[in-house]
Protein backbone atom coordinates (compact mmCIF):
# COMPACT_ATOMS: atom_id res chain seq x y z
CA UNK A 1 0.00 0.00 0.00
CA UNK A 2 2.80 2.40 0.85
CA UNK A 3 4.27 2.04 -2.61
CA UNK A 4 0.96 2.71 -4.20
CA UNK A 5 0.43 5.80 -2.10
CA UNK A 6 3.71 7.20 -3.30
CA UNK A 7 2.72 6.64 -6.86
CA UNK A 8 -0.67 8.14 -6.27
CA UNK A 9 0.72 11.43 -5.19
CA UNK A 10 2.36 12.23 -8.47
CA UNK A 11 -0.56 12.75 -10.82
CA UNK A 12 -2.85 14.10 -8.16
CA UNK A 13 -2.58 17.67 -7.10
CA UNK A 14 -5.81 18.48 -5.34
CA UNK A 15 -7.92 15.53 -4.23
CA UNK A 16 -5.39 13.51 -2.25
CA UNK A 17 -4.81 16.45 -0.06
CA UNK A 18 -8.51 16.61 0.42
CA UNK A 19 -8.79 12.93 1.21
CA UNK A 20 -7.15 13.70 4.49
CA UNK A 21 -8.76 17.11 4.70
CA UNK A 22 -12.11 15.91 5.94
CA UNK A 23 -12.38 18.58 8.71
CA UNK A 24 -13.04 21.17 6.06
CA UNK A 25 -16.62 19.96 5.96
CA UNK A 26 -17.05 21.53 9.33
CA UNK A 27 -16.26 24.98 8.12
CA UNK A 28 -18.14 27.80 9.86
CA UNK A 29 -21.57 28.60 8.54
CA UNK A 30 -20.71 32.11 7.39
CA UNK A 31 -18.77 30.60 4.52
CA UNK A 32 -21.92 28.84 3.33
CA UNK A 33 -22.69 29.34 -0.34
CA UNK A 34 -26.37 29.54 -1.17
CA UNK A 35 -27.66 26.39 -2.82
CA UNK A 36 -27.99 26.48 -6.57
CA UNK A 37 -29.05 24.09 -9.29
CA UNK A 38 -25.78 22.26 -9.06
CA UNK A 39 -26.33 21.41 -5.48
CA UNK A 40 -29.69 19.87 -6.33
CA UNK A 41 -28.12 17.72 -9.01
CA UNK A 42 -25.23 16.65 -6.85
CA UNK A 43 -27.31 15.89 -3.82
CA UNK A 44 -29.46 13.44 -5.74
CA UNK A 45 -26.57 11.03 -6.13
CA UNK A 46 -26.97 8.07 -3.89
CA UNK A 47 -23.23 7.68 -3.49
CA UNK A 48 -20.01 7.31 -5.46
CA UNK A 49 -21.29 4.30 -7.43
CA UNK A 50 -24.34 6.27 -8.47
CA UNK A 51 -22.18 9.21 -9.49
CA UNK A 52 -19.82 6.96 -11.45
CA UNK A 53 -22.73 5.32 -13.26
CA UNK A 54 -24.07 8.74 -14.10
CA UNK A 55 -20.73 9.79 -15.56
CA UNK A 56 -20.35 6.56 -17.51
CA UNK A 57 -23.83 6.85 -18.99
CA UNK A 58 -23.54 10.59 -19.62
CA UNK A 59 -20.30 10.26 -21.51
CA UNK A 60 -21.23 7.02 -23.22
CA UNK A 61 -18.34 5.18 -21.68
CA UNK A 62 -18.10 1.42 -21.96
CA UNK A 63 -18.67 -0.26 -18.63
CA UNK A 64 -16.65 -3.24 -19.77
CA UNK A 65 -13.71 -1.16 -20.89
CA UNK A 66 -13.78 1.93 -18.75
CA UNK A 67 -11.28 4.56 -19.79
CA UNK A 68 -9.97 5.14 -16.31
CA UNK A 69 -8.18 8.38 -16.98
CA UNK A 70 -11.28 10.03 -18.39
CA UNK A 71 -13.59 8.67 -15.72
CA UNK A 72 -11.27 9.60 -12.88
CA UNK A 73 -10.93 13.10 -14.25
CA UNK A 74 -14.68 13.54 -14.51
CA UNK A 75 -15.22 12.14 -11.03
CA UNK A 76 -12.62 14.40 -9.48
CA UNK A 77 -14.27 17.36 -11.17
CA UNK A 78 -17.53 16.59 -9.42
CA UNK A 79 -15.84 15.97 -6.09
CA UNK A 80 -14.23 19.35 -6.40
CA UNK A 81 -17.56 20.97 -7.23
CA UNK A 82 -19.14 19.35 -4.22
CA UNK A 83 -16.40 20.48 -1.94
CA UNK A 84 -16.43 24.00 -3.30
CA UNK A 85 -20.13 24.12 -2.62
CA UNK A 86 -19.71 22.84 0.93
CA UNK A 87 -21.97 19.90 0.13
CA UNK A 88 -21.75 17.40 2.83
CA UNK A 89 -19.41 14.98 1.21
CA UNK A 90 -19.67 11.46 2.52
CA UNK A 91 -16.39 9.72 3.18
CA UNK A 92 -17.34 7.13 0.56
CA UNK A 93 -16.84 9.69 -2.19
CA UNK A 94 -13.28 10.30 -1.10
CA UNK A 95 -12.63 6.61 -0.71
CA UNK A 96 -13.86 6.04 -4.24
CA UNK A 97 -11.51 8.74 -5.48
CA UNK A 98 -8.66 6.79 -3.97
CA UNK A 99 -9.91 3.57 -5.54
CA UNK A 100 -10.17 5.14 -8.97
CA UNK A 101 -6.69 6.52 -8.75
CA UNK A 102 -5.37 3.22 -7.57
CA UNK A 103 -6.94 1.40 -10.51
CA UNK A 104 -5.63 3.99 -12.91
CA UNK A 105 -2.14 3.69 -11.58
CA UNK A 106 -2.24 -0.10 -11.65
CA UNK A 107 -3.22 0.05 -15.26
CA UNK A 108 -0.21 2.20 -15.96
CA UNK A 109 2.07 -0.46 -14.50
CA UNK A 110 3.36 -3.14 -16.83
CA UNK A 111 1.37 -6.33 -16.41
CA UNK A 112 3.25 -8.84 -14.32
CA UNK A 113 4.29 -11.99 -16.22
CA UNK A 114 1.81 -14.80 -16.01
CA UNK A 115 2.48 -17.07 -13.11
CA UNK A 116 -0.42 -19.36 -13.79
CA UNK A 117 -2.46 -17.60 -11.20
CA UNK A 118 -5.49 -16.27 -13.02
CA UNK A 119 -6.41 -13.74 -10.40
CA UNK A 120 -3.15 -11.91 -10.57
CA UNK A 121 -3.72 -11.19 -14.23
CA UNK A 122 -7.22 -9.90 -13.67
CA UNK A 123 -8.08 -6.51 -15.08
CA UNK A 124 -7.66 -4.00 -12.24
CA UNK A 125 -11.05 -2.61 -13.20
CA UNK A 126 -12.87 -5.93 -12.77
CA UNK A 127 -13.99 -5.37 -9.21
CA UNK A 128 -15.19 -1.86 -9.95
CA UNK A 129 -17.06 -3.10 -13.02
CA UNK A 130 -18.73 -5.82 -11.02
CA UNK A 131 -19.81 -3.35 -8.34
CA UNK A 132 -21.10 -0.87 -10.86
CA UNK A 133 -23.15 -3.48 -12.64
CA UNK A 134 -24.55 -4.93 -9.45
CA UNK A 135 -25.46 -1.51 -8.16
CA UNK A 136 -27.05 -0.54 -11.44
CA UNK A 137 -29.09 -3.72 -11.43
CA UNK A 138 -30.45 -2.89 -7.98
CA UNK A 139 -30.99 0.73 -8.90
CA UNK A 140 -33.17 -0.31 -11.83
CA UNK A 141 -34.93 -2.87 -9.63
CA UNK A 142 -35.68 -0.15 -7.10
CA UNK A 143 -37.10 1.97 -9.89
CA UNK A 144 -39.34 -0.86 -11.10
CA UNK A 145 -40.39 -1.68 -7.57
CA UNK A 146 -41.40 1.92 -7.08
CA UNK A 147 -43.49 1.76 -10.24
CA UNK A 148 -45.59 -1.11 -8.90
CA UNK A 149 -48.99 0.06 -7.68
CA UNK A 150 -48.68 0.50 -3.94
CA UNK A 151 -51.45 0.17 -1.38
CA UNK A 152 -52.43 3.59 -0.08
CA UNK A 153 -50.62 5.37 -2.90
CA UNK A 154 -51.96 3.87 -6.11
CA UNK A 155 -54.97 2.02 -4.78
CA UNK A 156 -56.93 1.86 -1.57
CA UNK A 157 -57.75 -1.12 0.56
CA UNK A 158 -61.41 -1.69 1.15
CA UNK A 159 -62.59 -0.75 4.63
CA UNK A 160 -66.15 -1.72 5.30
CA UNK A 161 -67.46 -1.28 8.77
CA UNK A 162 -68.56 -4.37 10.60
CA UNK A 163 -71.85 -3.63 12.27
CA UNK A 164 -70.81 -3.97 15.86
CA UNK A 165 -74.13 -3.14 17.43
CA UNK A 166 -75.21 -6.76 17.51
CA UNK A 167 -72.00 -8.33 18.65
CA UNK A 168 -72.64 -8.24 22.37
CA UNK A 169 -71.96 -11.84 23.13
CA UNK A 170 -73.89 -13.43 25.91
CA UNK A 171 -72.56 -16.38 27.79
CA UNK A 172 -74.20 -19.67 27.08
CA UNK A 173 -75.23 -21.84 29.94
CA UNK A 174 -75.62 -25.57 29.74
CA UNK A 175 -77.81 -27.77 31.85
CA UNK A 176 -74.66 -29.35 33.22
CA UNK A 177 -73.34 -25.99 34.41
CA UNK A 178 -76.61 -25.26 36.13
CA UNK A 179 -76.55 -28.62 37.80
CA UNK A 180 -72.96 -28.18 38.87
CA UNK A 181 -73.72 -24.77 40.34
CA UNK A 182 -76.52 -26.29 42.35
CA UNK A 183 -74.32 -29.15 43.48
CA UNK A 184 -71.71 -26.72 44.66
CA UNK A 185 -74.32 -25.02 46.76
CA UNK A 186 -75.56 -28.28 48.20
CA UNK A 187 -72.05 -29.34 49.04
CA UNK A 188 -71.33 -26.02 50.65
CA UNK A 189 -74.52 -25.91 52.65
CA UNK A 190 -73.89 -29.50 53.79
CA UNK A 191 -77.52 -30.17 53.17
CA UNK A 192 -76.67 -33.18 51.10
CA UNK A 193 -76.54 -35.50 54.09
CA UNK A 194 -80.21 -35.38 55.02
CA UNK A 195 -81.83 -33.57 52.17
CA UNK A 196 -83.11 -35.60 49.31
CA UNK A 197 -84.19 -33.72 46.25
CA UNK A 198 -86.82 -35.66 44.42
CA UNK A 199 -87.41 -35.36 40.73
CA UNK A 200 -91.10 -34.70 41.15
CA UNK A 201 -90.44 -31.88 43.55
CA UNK A 202 -89.18 -29.84 40.67
CA UNK A 203 -92.44 -30.35 38.86
CA UNK A 204 -94.24 -29.00 41.89
CA UNK A 205 -91.89 -26.02 42.03
CA UNK A 206 -92.46 -25.37 38.36
CA UNK A 207 -96.18 -25.59 38.81
CA UNK A 208 -96.03 -23.21 41.77
CA UNK A 209 -94.39 -20.67 39.50
CA UNK A 210 -97.04 -21.19 36.88
CA UNK A 211 -99.85 -20.59 39.33
CA UNK A 212 -98.22 -17.46 40.70
CA UNK A 213 -97.69 -16.22 37.17
CA UNK A 214 -101.36 -16.68 36.41
CA UNK A 215 -102.27 -14.76 39.53
CA UNK A 216 -99.85 -11.98 38.77
CA UNK A 217 -102.07 -10.41 36.14
CA UNK A 218 -105.40 -10.83 37.87
CA UNK A 219 -106.83 -9.94 41.26
CA UNK A 220 -108.12 -13.44 41.66
CA UNK A 221 -108.87 -16.48 39.60
CA UNK A 222 -111.19 -19.36 40.11
CA UNK A 223 -109.69 -22.49 41.55
CA UNK A 224 -110.71 -24.57 38.52
CA UNK A 225 -109.05 -22.23 36.05
CA UNK A 226 -105.69 -23.13 37.54
CA UNK A 227 -106.06 -26.61 36.14
CA UNK A 228 -105.57 -27.25 32.45
CA UNK A 229 -108.43 -29.31 31.09
CA UNK A 230 -106.29 -31.44 28.83
CA UNK A 231 -103.61 -32.01 31.48
CA UNK A 232 -102.75 -35.55 32.50
CA UNK A 233 -103.86 -36.85 35.86
CA UNK A 234 -100.35 -36.71 37.34
CA UNK A 235 -100.16 -33.08 36.17
CA UNK A 236 -103.49 -32.29 37.84
CA UNK A 237 -102.14 -33.80 41.02
CA UNK A 238 -98.93 -31.83 40.76
CA UNK A 239 -100.90 -28.64 40.22
CA UNK A 240 -103.03 -29.38 43.26
CA UNK A 241 -99.96 -30.02 45.40
CA UNK A 242 -98.40 -26.83 44.06
CA UNK A 243 -101.46 -24.82 45.12
CA UNK A 244 -101.38 -26.37 48.58
CA UNK A 245 -97.66 -25.72 48.83
CA UNK A 246 -98.19 -22.06 47.85
CA UNK A 247 -100.89 -21.75 50.49
CA UNK A 248 -98.59 -23.34 53.04
CA UNK A 249 -95.88 -20.85 52.20
CA UNK A 250 -98.59 -18.17 52.55
CA UNK A 251 -97.98 -17.03 49.02
CA UNK A 252 -101.63 -17.41 48.08
CA UNK A 253 -104.96 -17.42 49.80
CA UNK A 254 -107.74 -19.78 48.90
CA UNK A 255 -111.23 -18.62 49.78
CA UNK A 256 -114.75 -19.98 49.50
CA UNK A 257 -117.50 -17.58 50.56
CA UNK A 258 -120.31 -20.12 50.66
CA UNK A 259 -120.55 -23.85 50.82
CA UNK A 260 -120.32 -25.47 47.39
CA UNK A 261 -119.74 -22.01 45.98
CA UNK A 262 -116.83 -20.97 43.79
CA UNK A 263 -113.39 -21.27 45.26
CA UNK A 264 -111.21 -18.27 44.52
CA UNK A 265 -107.47 -18.06 44.64
CA UNK A 266 -105.62 -14.81 45.04
CA UNK A 267 -102.12 -13.78 45.97
CA UNK A 268 -101.44 -12.38 49.37
CA UNK A 269 -100.28 -9.25 47.65
CA UNK A 270 -103.73 -8.81 46.19
CA UNK A 271 -105.16 -9.20 49.67
CA UNK A 272 -102.87 -6.58 51.09
CA UNK A 273 -103.79 -4.14 48.37
CA UNK A 274 -107.45 -4.24 49.31
Amino acid at each position, binding site marked *: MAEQDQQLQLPITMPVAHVHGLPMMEMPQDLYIPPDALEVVLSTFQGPLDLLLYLIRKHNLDVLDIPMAQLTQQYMGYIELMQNNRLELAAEYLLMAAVLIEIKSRMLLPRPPKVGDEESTEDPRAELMRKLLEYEQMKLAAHQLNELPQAGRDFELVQVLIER*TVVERLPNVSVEELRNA*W*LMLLARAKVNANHKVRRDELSVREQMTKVLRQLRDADYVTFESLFEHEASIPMLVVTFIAILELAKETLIEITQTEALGNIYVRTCRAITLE
Partner: protein
Amino acid sequence: MSEPVEPSPLSEAVVAKQHVATATQVVVSDQSVDVVLLKRIFEAALFSSQEPLSVTELKRLSDAEIDTPFVEKMLAQIAEKYADSGVELNRVASGWRFRSRPELQVHLDKLNPQKPPRYSRAVMETLAIIAYRQPVTRGDIEDIRGVNVSPQVLKTLEARSWIEVIGTRDTPGKPELFATTQQLLDDLNLRSLSELPALSEMGNLLDQSNAGGN
Protein backbone atom coordinates in the same frame (compact mmCIF):
# COMPACT_ATOMS: atom_id res chain seq x y z
CA MET B 1 -49.81 2.83 -13.05
CA SER B 2 -49.56 -0.53 -14.72
CA GLU B 3 -53.19 -1.12 -15.61
CA PRO B 4 -54.92 0.83 -18.31
CA VAL B 5 -58.11 2.67 -17.57
CA GLU B 6 -60.92 0.73 -19.11
CA PRO B 7 -63.10 2.86 -21.27
CA SER B 8 -66.65 2.82 -20.05
CA PRO B 9 -69.44 2.18 -22.51
CA LEU B 10 -70.56 5.39 -24.08
CA SER B 11 -74.09 4.17 -24.34
CA GLU B 12 -74.55 4.71 -20.65
CA ALA B 13 -73.04 8.13 -20.52
CA VAL B 14 -75.71 10.70 -20.01
CA VAL B 15 -75.80 14.42 -20.17
CA ALA B 16 -76.50 16.05 -16.86
CA LYS B 17 -78.07 19.40 -17.25
CA GLN B 18 -77.45 21.61 -14.37
CA HIS B 19 -78.68 25.01 -13.42
CA VAL B 20 -76.60 26.75 -10.85
CA ALA B 21 -78.27 29.81 -9.51
CA THR B 22 -76.35 32.34 -7.52
CA ALA B 23 -77.50 35.65 -6.13
CA THR B 24 -76.52 37.55 -9.20
CA GLN B 25 -76.59 35.15 -12.10
CA VAL B 26 -77.89 31.92 -13.46
CA VAL B 27 -75.33 29.65 -14.98
CA VAL B 28 -76.54 26.86 -17.15
CA SER B 29 -73.89 24.31 -17.73
CA ASP B 30 -74.26 21.33 -20.02
CA GLN B 31 -71.69 18.79 -19.05
CA SER B 32 -71.37 15.25 -20.14
CA VAL B 33 -71.15 13.04 -17.07
CA ASP B 34 -69.87 9.54 -17.56
CA VAL B 35 -72.32 7.88 -15.21
CA VAL B 36 -70.78 4.44 -15.40
CA LEU B 37 -67.35 5.76 -14.49
CA LEU B 38 -68.72 8.02 -11.79
CA LYS B 39 -70.61 5.14 -10.22
CA ARG B 40 -67.43 3.12 -10.07
CA ILE B 41 -65.60 6.07 -8.52
CA PHE B 42 -68.35 6.43 -5.91
CA GLU B 43 -68.15 2.73 -5.12
CA ALA B 44 -64.39 2.80 -4.80
CA ALA B 45 -64.56 5.87 -2.55
CA LEU B 46 -67.35 4.52 -0.37
CA PHE B 47 -65.63 1.18 -0.01
CA SER B 48 -62.22 2.56 0.84
CA SER B 49 -63.01 5.59 2.95
CA GLN B 50 -62.48 5.31 6.68
CA GLU B 51 -65.32 7.69 7.37
CA PRO B 52 -68.78 8.07 5.90
CA LEU B 53 -68.74 10.31 2.83
CA SER B 54 -71.03 13.31 2.69
CA VAL B 55 -72.85 14.32 -0.46
CA THR B 56 -70.52 17.32 -0.65
CA GLU B 57 -67.51 15.05 -0.67
CA LEU B 58 -69.07 12.79 -3.26
CA LYS B 59 -69.71 15.78 -5.50
CA ARG B 60 -66.03 16.59 -5.37
CA LEU B 61 -65.29 13.22 -6.95
CA SER B 62 -66.88 14.32 -10.20
CA ASP B 63 -65.05 16.39 -12.75
CA ALA B 64 -68.32 17.77 -14.03
CA GLU B 65 -70.51 19.74 -11.69
CA ILE B 66 -73.32 17.60 -10.33
CA ASP B 67 -76.14 18.49 -7.99
CA THR B 68 -77.41 16.82 -4.85
CA PRO B 69 -80.42 15.07 -6.43
CA PHE B 70 -78.07 13.60 -9.01
CA VAL B 71 -75.71 12.30 -6.30
CA GLU B 72 -78.65 10.88 -4.38
CA LYS B 73 -79.93 9.14 -7.48
CA MET B 74 -76.52 7.56 -7.97
CA LEU B 75 -76.43 6.48 -4.32
CA ALA B 76 -79.88 4.94 -4.64
CA GLN B 77 -78.69 2.98 -7.66
CA ILE B 78 -75.60 1.77 -5.81
CA ALA B 79 -77.69 0.78 -2.79
CA GLU B 80 -79.99 -1.14 -5.10
CA LYS B 81 -77.05 -2.88 -6.76
CA TYR B 82 -75.87 -4.22 -3.40
CA ALA B 83 -79.31 -5.16 -2.16
CA ASP B 84 -78.60 -8.88 -2.29
CA SER B 85 -74.93 -8.80 -1.33
CA GLY B 86 -73.12 -9.17 1.98
CA VAL B 87 -72.77 -5.44 2.43
CA GLU B 88 -75.24 -2.60 2.34
CA LEU B 89 -75.05 1.10 1.67
CA ASN B 90 -76.09 3.03 4.72
CA ARG B 91 -76.91 6.61 5.41
CA VAL B 92 -75.69 7.85 8.76
CA ALA B 93 -75.51 11.28 10.32
CA SER B 94 -72.25 12.25 8.68
CA GLY B 95 -72.91 10.72 5.29
CA TRP B 96 -72.94 7.46 3.39
CA ARG B 97 -70.94 4.35 4.00
CA PHE B 98 -70.96 0.64 3.37
CA ARG B 99 -71.29 -1.76 6.23
CA SER B 100 -71.51 -5.50 6.51
CA ARG B 101 -75.05 -6.68 7.00
CA PRO B 102 -75.84 -6.98 10.71
CA GLU B 103 -77.51 -10.34 10.25
CA LEU B 104 -74.26 -11.78 8.90
CA GLN B 105 -72.33 -10.73 11.98
CA VAL B 106 -72.92 -14.03 13.69
CA HIS B 107 -71.16 -15.75 10.79
CA LEU B 108 -68.29 -13.28 10.65
CA ASP B 109 -67.66 -13.90 14.32
CA LYS B 110 -66.38 -17.33 13.35
CA LEU B 111 -63.32 -15.66 11.91
CA ASN B 112 -62.29 -14.29 15.26
CA PRO B 113 -63.48 -16.90 17.64
CA GLN B 114 -63.34 -15.19 20.97
CA LYS B 115 -63.66 -17.43 23.94
CA PRO B 116 -67.33 -17.36 24.75
CA PRO B 117 -67.89 -15.26 27.83
CA ARG B 118 -68.85 -17.06 31.02
CA TYR B 119 -71.12 -16.07 33.83
CA SER B 120 -69.59 -15.62 37.22
CA ARG B 121 -70.08 -18.20 39.91
CA ALA B 122 -72.46 -15.83 41.69
CA VAL B 123 -74.68 -15.63 38.62
CA MET B 124 -74.65 -19.38 38.05
CA GLU B 125 -75.44 -20.23 41.65
CA THR B 126 -78.20 -17.66 41.80
CA LEU B 127 -79.70 -19.05 38.63
CA ALA B 128 -79.45 -22.59 39.99
CA ILE B 129 -81.21 -21.63 43.20
CA ILE B 130 -84.01 -19.89 41.32
CA ALA B 131 -84.34 -22.84 38.95
CA TYR B 132 -84.41 -25.56 41.63
CA ARG B 133 -86.17 -23.67 44.43
CA GLN B 134 -88.53 -21.28 42.70
CA PRO B 135 -90.30 -19.18 43.64
CA VAL B 136 -87.67 -17.62 45.85
CA THR B 137 -86.91 -14.21 47.23
CA ARG B 138 -83.55 -12.58 47.27
CA GLY B 139 -83.40 -13.39 50.95
CA ASP B 140 -83.91 -17.09 50.17
CA ILE B 141 -81.05 -16.98 47.72
CA GLU B 142 -78.82 -15.30 50.24
CA ASP B 143 -79.75 -17.87 52.85
CA ILE B 144 -78.74 -20.73 50.59
CA ARG B 145 -75.58 -19.08 49.20
CA GLY B 146 -74.59 -17.73 52.58
CA VAL B 147 -73.57 -14.41 51.07
CA ASN B 148 -75.24 -11.26 49.83
CA VAL B 149 -76.67 -11.33 46.33
CA SER B 150 -75.69 -8.20 44.46
CA PRO B 151 -78.48 -6.47 42.52
CA GLN B 152 -76.20 -6.75 39.46
CA VAL B 153 -76.48 -10.52 39.52
CA LEU B 154 -80.28 -10.47 39.42
CA LYS B 155 -80.21 -7.71 36.80
CA THR B 156 -77.96 -9.81 34.59
CA LEU B 157 -80.39 -12.71 34.73
CA GLU B 158 -83.41 -10.50 34.22
CA ALA B 159 -81.77 -8.77 31.25
CA ARG B 160 -81.29 -12.19 29.72
CA SER B 161 -85.00 -12.85 30.33
CA TRP B 162 -84.07 -15.98 32.23
CA ILE B 163 -85.74 -14.94 35.46
CA GLU B 164 -88.64 -12.70 36.33
CA VAL B 165 -90.55 -11.45 39.30
CA ILE B 166 -93.79 -13.39 39.53
CA GLY B 167 -95.13 -11.88 42.77
CA THR B 168 -94.20 -10.88 46.27
CA ARG B 169 -94.14 -12.79 49.52
CA ASP B 170 -96.49 -11.60 52.18
CA THR B 171 -93.82 -10.92 54.74
CA PRO B 172 -92.44 -7.62 56.01
CA GLY B 173 -90.88 -5.69 53.15
CA LYS B 174 -92.95 -7.66 50.65
CA PRO B 175 -89.91 -9.25 49.01
CA GLU B 176 -90.19 -10.07 45.32
CA LEU B 177 -90.48 -13.67 44.27
CA PHE B 178 -88.23 -14.78 41.45
CA ALA B 179 -88.90 -17.64 39.08
CA THR B 180 -87.36 -18.87 35.86
CA THR B 181 -88.93 -18.20 32.48
CA GLN B 182 -89.84 -20.07 29.37
CA GLN B 183 -86.87 -18.34 27.74
CA LEU B 184 -84.49 -20.19 30.04
CA LEU B 185 -86.06 -23.51 29.15
CA ASP B 186 -85.82 -22.62 25.46
CA ASP B 187 -82.18 -21.61 25.79
CA LEU B 188 -81.37 -24.78 27.68
CA ASN B 189 -83.37 -26.77 25.18
CA LEU B 190 -85.64 -28.16 27.86
CA ARG B 191 -89.38 -28.69 27.65
CA SER B 192 -89.93 -28.40 31.36
CA LEU B 193 -88.03 -27.76 34.57
CA SER B 194 -88.52 -31.40 35.47
CA GLU B 195 -86.02 -32.18 32.73
CA LEU B 196 -83.32 -30.46 34.75
CA PRO B 197 -80.85 -33.05 36.00
CA ALA B 198 -82.24 -34.80 39.04
CA LEU B 199 -80.10 -34.60 42.11
CA SER B 200 -81.14 -37.85 43.73
CA GLU B 201 -77.92 -39.81 43.87
CA MET B 202 -76.05 -38.11 46.62
CA GLY B 203 -72.94 -40.16 46.18
CA ASN B 204 -72.42 -38.85 42.70
CA LEU B 205 -73.27 -35.36 43.71
CA LEU B 206 -70.37 -34.90 46.03
CA ASP B 207 -67.90 -36.06 43.43
CA GLN B 208 -69.47 -33.82 40.84
CA SER B 209 -69.53 -30.87 43.13
CA ASN B 210 -65.80 -31.05 43.54
CA ALA B 211 -65.31 -31.30 39.83
CA GLY B 212 -67.58 -28.41 39.04
CA GLY B 213 -65.66 -25.85 41.02
CA ASN B 214 -63.90 -22.80 39.63
